């Protein structure tokens, strides 16, 4: 399979949130604001790609049995680095994310494992596609939840109402419902059944 196909696979047919059910924690936990979804998506993509590239370079010197631990250690290093940089550049967003930022190591590990294929170049292409697919869905869920829950999109007021359309959209229970309905909509469009893979 070509590099472009792998890249597109990560965005569409093997989208981590919609079809592989990976990264559901940030997709519900942080997306009450659209900016959080975009921020976590981009940061996770960068962290996973960095860990993936360094991991692929080190693969030859690390035994197969220890590769999961290598990737986990690399994710921990890059997440810590990203935290150190971003807490200075965007303190409000990083503090607002709370524990979901360090948890990037765990859900990033799922994204990284989903990106690994036999060819290293294709793995990086798929990793980039998976990260972009992940970012698109997190941002989309964030936009929907912020609009329904607060009448805003990226902090800009769209609807000024005394009572919001669906105030619970800003909460975690509302996030479950919105993500479930979005998955059902995508299933209806793509004519898929909704059952998980594997």
């Amino acid at each position, binding site marked *: 399979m070509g590099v472009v196909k792998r890249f597109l696979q990560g965005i569409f047919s093997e989208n981590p949130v919609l079809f592989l*059910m*990976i990264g*559901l*924690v940030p997709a*519900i*936990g942080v997306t009450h604001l659209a900016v959080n979804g975009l921020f976590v998506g981009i940061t996770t993509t960068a962290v996973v790609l960095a860990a993936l590239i360094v991991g692929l370079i080190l693969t030859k010197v690390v035994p197969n049995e220890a590769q*999961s631990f290598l990737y*986990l*250690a690399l994710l*921990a290093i890059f*997440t*810590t680095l990203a*935290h*150190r940089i971003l807490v200075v550049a965007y303190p409000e967003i990083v503090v607002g994310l*709370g*524990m979901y930022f*360090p*948890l990037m*190591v*765990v*859900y990033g*590990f*799922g994204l990284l*494992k989903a990106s690994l294929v036999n060819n290293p170049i294709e793995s990086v292409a798929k990793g980039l596609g998976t990260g972009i697919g992940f970012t698109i869905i997190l941002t989309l869920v964030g936009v929907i939840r912020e609009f329904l829950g607060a009448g805003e999109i990226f902090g800009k007021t769209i609807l000024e109402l005394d009572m919001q359309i669906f105030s*619970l959209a800003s*909460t*975690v*229970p*509302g*996030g*479950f*419902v919105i*993500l*479930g*309905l979005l*998955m*059902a*909509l995508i*299933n*209806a469009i793509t004519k*898929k*059944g*909704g*059952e*998980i893979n594997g």
Partner: protein
Amino acid sequence: MANGLDFLANGVVSNNLLLFQALGLFALTRYTRDSLTAVKAGLGILLSMVTATVVLWGVNQWIPASFGLELPVLLLIALCSSFLWQKILGGSKWVEGFDYSLTSGLLNTAIVGALLLSLNDGVAGSALVSYGFSAGLGLGLALVVLAGIRERLEMAPVPKALQGVPILLISAGLLAMALMGFRF
């Protein structure tokens, strides 16, 4: 929080890791196809979480407060506790055939999340174990209840697009909304 009952009420109902923190969703999508699998997964997570909090209680005073060193230590604790129970439960007859693999143990955000939350909330000493037990019990119960709902939904005329994970997430959301009325 004053005593164990407060931790229990918080862990099981008002701050349920799965329903109100969106943690452990990997287990929700994989281990709720039937009630027995959900019970086994819940038990595995509960034991891992209690073990992790016991270890954290022991090493807590030596963990530096900075994020840089805290995260690898918490990861190592979560990894070792889930790996330990994977080995123990994987070898017992009762959980024969149960896919509590290393990868799924590693991927469990609930264990790492519970450790991070306990440190953020300033829980220390023996209270950490009560915290871990309550959080694990709450997560396990939520898994079992949602597995029961999923089993019932398999017999219901659910539209094709909603079948599987979408209806499961919507059910989890509605269950969480119902429990919001009992928040302490």
